C-alpha cells in the first residue's frame, strides 16, 4: 500500500514536471555530452618508455650468482654459472629499476585462494593462480609490462621468443628462440619443446590445451626451421593479435623431455588422463623455465618454491636473476590475501574490493604500517546490461515486449539518466574512489579519451520524459508504468552476484532509482549468474564489466563471436545496426598491425558504444596494489590489471629486499634437486 502511494505521488509529480524537464532534457537527456574527466587518486604521472627500454638480450663474459647456487656449484651439484646461462640472456635494464640492482637472498610471501591441480599446464592444469601460474609458465611473448610502454609501441614483448618476423603477406610468422636457455633440470630449451607443445598438445583435440586448436586460425601449421627457429604458416593474413595469444597462458611450452614419454602419442601404455596428471601437485620438484621451482607442497597450507639455478635472465651487472632465493605461497583464501597484506604476513595483494579501500588509505598514513597501497588509475568498473536479444531465452509475451524496449536506444538512455552514480559510489565506499562510467573503455585504459565517451548522466526527470514519450504511462494508476496501450506493469528483474559485495550494494542502490522513474525492479541475486546468462533467462544484469585493452578479449566485449556478449549466446543473435558497426571496427582491430589504427578504431568503438548506450555504465574505481614496504623495485603505478595481472606487470624477477630487511627462508640452503 505504501509503495503504491509512493509511486502515485512520484508519477503525478513527474507529470507536473514534464514541461520543465523537457527543457532540461534538450540539453542533457538527448544532447551528446561527454563524460567529465576524473581526478586521479594518487596524482601520479606515469612516465611511459619505449619497448626496448625495459630489457634486452645480451651476453656477459662472466656471470655472478646467488651464494645459494654458488654453494651447490662448490659442492659439485651444479655446473658453474657461466655454463648454465644462455648465449645471450634476457637482461633487465637498470634505468627502469627504480631501486637499482638488487641484493640476493630472503623470501617473498604470496597468499592465494587457489590450489594447485597439478603442474601439467600443457594440458590446462592450474597451479593455483595468484602468481604461481605466471611464475611457472614462461611464454613465448609477454604482455604484463606493456602498461609501461608508449601506446604506439605497445605490441607484445619478447620473452622466450627473442625476436620474430612477419612475411610480407603476413601469412607466416618466423620466431627465434633465446639460444641455450635451459629448463630447471639443465635440459636445453629448444624447438623440440615447441614442436611438442604445438603438435601434441595444442593440435591434439584430446588435450585441454590453454591455446585452443584453431586459436591462431584454422589451418595454421608449425614448421621447425632449426633448434632455435620456427615458423607459423597461416591460411590467411594475420596481425599482432597472434603474438598476444602466444603470451601467458596460451604460449607456454612445457618440458618435452619430461612430458613426451608420458603422452599417448609416444607411449602406448599412457592414456590422456594419465598424461594430464603426469606432473601431479604432490610430486616435486617439477621442471620449469620459470624463476622458481616448487620444491615443497604441504597440501592446503603452503607451497615453497626455490630459485631456478638455470634461470635465463640477468641484470646489467650480469647477476643472475631472481634476487630472492625463495618465494612461498600460503594457501588460504582470496579475501585473506588482502588481509594478510595489510597485516604484514603477506607481501603482495591485488586489492579490488572497494570495501577495503578506506582502511588501506588509513594504513598508508600510519608510518608503522608494513604495507603501502598504491592506487592506480580507474581500471575497474560496473555496468548495468540489458538483454538486447529479441528472443534468446524469452518465455512470455511480456518478456518479448520488454526486449523490444531494451533494443530501443531511447529506453536505454532513460535508464542511464535514472542512475545517480554519485550516490551509488558513496553507497559502496565513502570517499574519492568512484567516478561515473559511461560503459566501454574505463578511464585508466590507454585506449580511453573522455571526449569519446558520450554520457547520459543523472537526470531523473529527463528519464521520465523519455519514458512518457515512449508511451510507457501509468495507465492503471498503481504508480508503476505500464507497457504501451495499457499493457502489463513495467516490472524488471535485475540479476546480480550474491557473493560480490560491490555488486550487491549497487543493485540495492539502483532500486530507488528505478522506482523514481516508475519502474518496479525485482532484484535477482545469484551466486552463479552464468547459469542465467547461459540460457538467456535474464532481463537486466549489474556486474563488473570493464574493458581496458582494445586488443585483448575483444570477443568478450563486442559481438565478434557467436557467444558474446551474454545476450548473443544463442549463436549470433540478431544484431542491432550499431552492433554491426561495432563488429566491423572490431574486425579492423584484429586485422591490423598498425597501433595507431588500433587506437583510432578503439576511439570509434567507444563513441558508437556509448552514444548507443550499449551497456549503462555505472561507476568506475581504481584498484590498489598492496605491497610490503621491504619489497624494492616495485615500479610506481603498476596497475593491478591491465595487459596482464600485476604479478607479471611488476616484473617479479627484478624485485628484491635489502639484506638487512630480508626475512628468513623457510628452507634455507635448499635448491631443487632432480633424480
Amino acid at each position, binding site marked *: 500500500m505504501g509503495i503504491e502511494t509512493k509511486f502515485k505521488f512520484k508519477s503525478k509529480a513527474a507529470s507536473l514536471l514534464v514541461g520543465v524537464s523537457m527543457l532540461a532534457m534538450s540539453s542533457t537527456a538527448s544532447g551528446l555530452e561527454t563524460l567529465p574527466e576524473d581526478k586521479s587518486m594518487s596524482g601520479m604521472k606515469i612516465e611511459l618508455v619505449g619497448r626496448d627500454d625495459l630489457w634486452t638480450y645480451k651476453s656477459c663474459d662472466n656471470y655472478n650468482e646467488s651464494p645459494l647456487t654458488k654453494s651447490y656449484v662448490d659442492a659439485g651439484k651444479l655446473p658453474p654459472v657461466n655454463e648454465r646461462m644462455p648465449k645471450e640472456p634476457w637482461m633487465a635494464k637498470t634505468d627502469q629499476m627504480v631501486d637499482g640492482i638488487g641484493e640476493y637472498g630472503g623470501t617473498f610471501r604470496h597468499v592465494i585462494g587457489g590450489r594447485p591441480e597439478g603442474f601439467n599446464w600443457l594440458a590446462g592444469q592450474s597451479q593455483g593462480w595468484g602468481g604461481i601460474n605466471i611464475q611457472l609458465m614462461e611464454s613465448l611473448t609477454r604482455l604484463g609490462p606493456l602498461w609501461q610502454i608508449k601506446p604506439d609501441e605497445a605490441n607484445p614483448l619478447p620473452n622466450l621468443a627473442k625476436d620474430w618476423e612477419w612475411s610480407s603477406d603476413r601469412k607466416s610468422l618466423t620466431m627465434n628462440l633465446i639460444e641455450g636457455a635451459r629448463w630447471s633440470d639443465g635440459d636445453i630449451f629448444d624447438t623440440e619443446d615447441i614442436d611438442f607443445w604445438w603438435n601434441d598438445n595444442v593440435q591434439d583435440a584430446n588435450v585441454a590445451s*590453454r591455446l585452443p586448436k584453431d586459436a591462431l586460425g584454422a589451418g595454421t601449421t608449425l614448421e621447425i626451421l632449426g633448434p632455435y627457429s620456427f615458423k607459423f604458416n597461416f591460411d590467411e593474413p594475420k596481425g599482432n593479435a597472434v603474438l598476444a595469444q602466444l603470451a601467458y597462458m596460451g604460449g607456454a611450452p612445457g618440458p618435452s623431455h619430461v612430458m613426451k614419454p608420458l603422452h599417448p602419442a609416444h607411449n602406448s601404455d599412457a592414456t590422456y588422463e594419465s598424461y594430464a596428471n603426469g606432473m601431479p601437485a604432490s610430486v616435486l620438484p617439477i621442471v620449469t623455465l620459470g624463476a622458481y621451482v616448487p620444491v615443497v607442497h604441504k597440501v592446503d597450507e603452503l607451497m615453497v618454491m626455490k630459485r631456478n639455478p638455470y634461470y635465463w635472465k640477468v641484470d646489467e651487472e650480469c647477476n643472475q636473476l631472481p634476487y630472492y632465493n625463495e618465494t612461498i605461497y600460503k594457501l588460504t583464501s582470496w579475501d585473506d590475501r588482502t588481509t594478510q597484506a595489510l597485516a604484514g604476513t603477506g607481501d603482495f595483494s591485488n586489492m579490488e574490493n572497494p570495501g577495503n579501500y578506506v582502511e588501506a588509505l588509513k594504513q598508508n598514513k600510519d608510518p608503522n604500517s608494513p604495507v603501502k597501497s598504491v592506487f592506480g588509475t580507474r581500471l575497474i568498473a560496473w555496468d548495468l546490461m540489458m538483454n538486447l536479444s529479441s528472443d534468446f531465452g524469452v518465455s512470455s509475451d511480456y518478456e518479448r515486449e520488454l526486449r523490444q524496449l531494451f533494443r530501443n536506444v531511447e529506453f536505454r538512455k532513460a535508464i542511464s539518466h535514472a542512475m545517480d552514480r554519485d550516490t551509488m559510489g558513496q553507497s559502496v565506499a565513502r570517499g574519492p574512489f568512484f567516478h561515473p562510467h559511461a560503459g566501454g573503455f574505463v578511464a585508466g585504459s590507454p585506449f580511453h579519451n573522455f571526449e569519446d565517451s558520450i554520457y547520459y548522466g543523472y537526470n531523473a526527470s529527463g528519464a521520465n520524459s523519455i519514458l512518457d514519450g515512449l508511451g510507457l504511462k501509468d495507465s492503471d494508476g498503481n504508480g508503476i508504468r505500464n507497457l504501451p496501450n495499457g499493457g502489463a506493469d513495467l516490472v524488471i528483474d535485475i540479476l546480480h552476484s550474491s557473493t560480490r559485495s560491490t555488486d550487491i550494494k549497487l543493485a540495492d542502490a539502483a532500486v530507488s532509482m528505478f522506482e523514481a522513474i516508475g519502474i518496479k525492479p525485482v532484484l535477482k541475486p545469484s551466486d*552463479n549468474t552464468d547459469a542465467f546468462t547461459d540460457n538467456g533467462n535474464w532481463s537486466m544484469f549489474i556486474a563488473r564489466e570493464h574493458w581496458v585493452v582494445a586488443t585483448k*578479449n575483444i570477443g568478450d566485449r563486442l559481438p565478434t563471436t557467436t557467444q558474446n556478449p551474454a545476450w548473443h549466446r544463442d549463436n549470433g543473435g540478431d544484431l542491432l545496426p550499431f552492433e554491426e558497426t561495432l563488429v566491423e571496427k572490431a574486425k579492423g582491430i584484429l586485422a591490423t598491425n598498425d597501433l595507431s589504427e588500433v587506437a583510432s578504431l578503439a576511439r570509434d568503438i567507444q563513441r558508437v558504444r556509448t552514444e548507443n548506450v550499449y551497456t549503462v555504465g555505472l561507476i568506475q574505481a581504481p584498484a590498489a596494489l598492496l605491497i610490503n614496504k621491504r619489497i624494492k623495485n616495485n615500479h610506481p603505478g603498476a596497475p593491478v590489471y591491465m595487459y596482464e595481472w600485476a604479478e607479471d606487470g611488476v616484473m617479479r624477477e627484478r624485485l628484491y629486499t635489502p639484506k638487512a630487511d630480508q626475512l628468513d627462508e623457510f628452507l634455507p640452503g635448499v635448491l631443487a634437486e632432480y633424480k
Partner: protein
Amino acid sequence: MGFLVFFIKRALATIPLLFAITVVAFTLLQAMPGDYADQWKNQTMMLGGISEEEAQIQADELRVKLGLDKPVYIQYFNWVKDLTLYWDLGESFIQKRSVNEVVGDRIPRTLLLAFICYFNAVTIGILAGVYAATHQYQIGDQVATVLTFLAFSIPKFIIAIFILYFWAIKFHSPYYGSLFSQEYVLQEGWWSLAKTWDFFLHTWPIIAVGSFVGAGYQMRMMRGNLLDVLKMQFIETARAKGLKESKIIWKHGVPNALHPIIMNQGRSVGYLIEGEIEVAIVLAIPTVGPLILSSVSSMDIYVASSIFMILSLILVIGNFVADCILALLDPRIRDMAGGAA
C-alpha cells in the same frame, strides 16, 4: 535389558537419518544453478585472462570428464556406492586428491579446537554458574549475567571480525593466517611444547570466542539449576542439620544441579563446532570452516557433501550419546522405549 533395547532402537533409528542427510546434502548443493565447470570457467577467464569462448570449450570438456553431465541421481548413486562399499568419499575437483584426505586433514583440527572450547566452556561456565547462583544479585552475578547476554546476543562472526581488525590490521600480529609460524609449518612428527604454544598463539581467537560463548550458555544453565536446587527441601534440611555452607553447595547442591547439564552436552557439540567454523572462516584459519565455504562456493560437491555428512554424523552421535546417558540416568526414558517395543 530396557537400556539395551533403547540402545539398539536408537542406533537403528540413526541409519535412515544419516541416509536422509546424504540425500539432502547432495541434492541441496545440486539444486543451486550451475556446477563446478561453470565456476572453473569463471575463474579461468578472470585469472587466466582468456576469452569466454576459449574457456567455454575447456569447461565443457571438464564437465564430461568429471561426470557432471550425468543426471543428479546417477551422480548421487555413484557417490553413495563408493562411500558405502569402499569408504571413498570421491575426489575433490579443486585439489585433485581424495576427499578422504582433504577432509581428513581438517576435521581433526576442528574437533581438537572444538574440544578445547568445550572443555573451557564447561569448566568456566559451571564454576561461574556456581558463583553466580551463590552470589545472586551481587555484583559478580550481575557482571557474569551481562557477559552471558553479550555472548548470547553478539553473533560469533562479529566478534571474530573485531578480533581480525585489531589483531591483524591494527597490531600487525605475525600470528595470523595460519596454524603455525614459519619454523613449525614444515615440521612433521610430535608437537613440541614450543610448537603447541605457537599453535595456541595462532588459534586463540577461535578458542576465546568458542569458550566465551559456550561458557555463557553453560553458566546460565548452571546458575538456574543450582538456584532451583538450593531452594529444595533437602538443602533446607542439610542447613538445619548445621552442615557447612560450602559442603551443602558442593556435595549436595552442585551434583544435583549438574544432571540437566550433562543431559544437554550432546547438543552443545554441534553448537561448538558451528562456532569454530564461523570464527575460522573470518580469520582464515585452515580448519573445516573455510573449506566448507570454498567448497560450496566453487561447487566442489563431493567435498561439501562429505563435510555436511561428517558434521551431521558427529551431531547425530553427540545426540545419541546424550540420549543414552539420559536413558542410563533416567529409567523412565528407557522404560518408554521398552514399552513401545
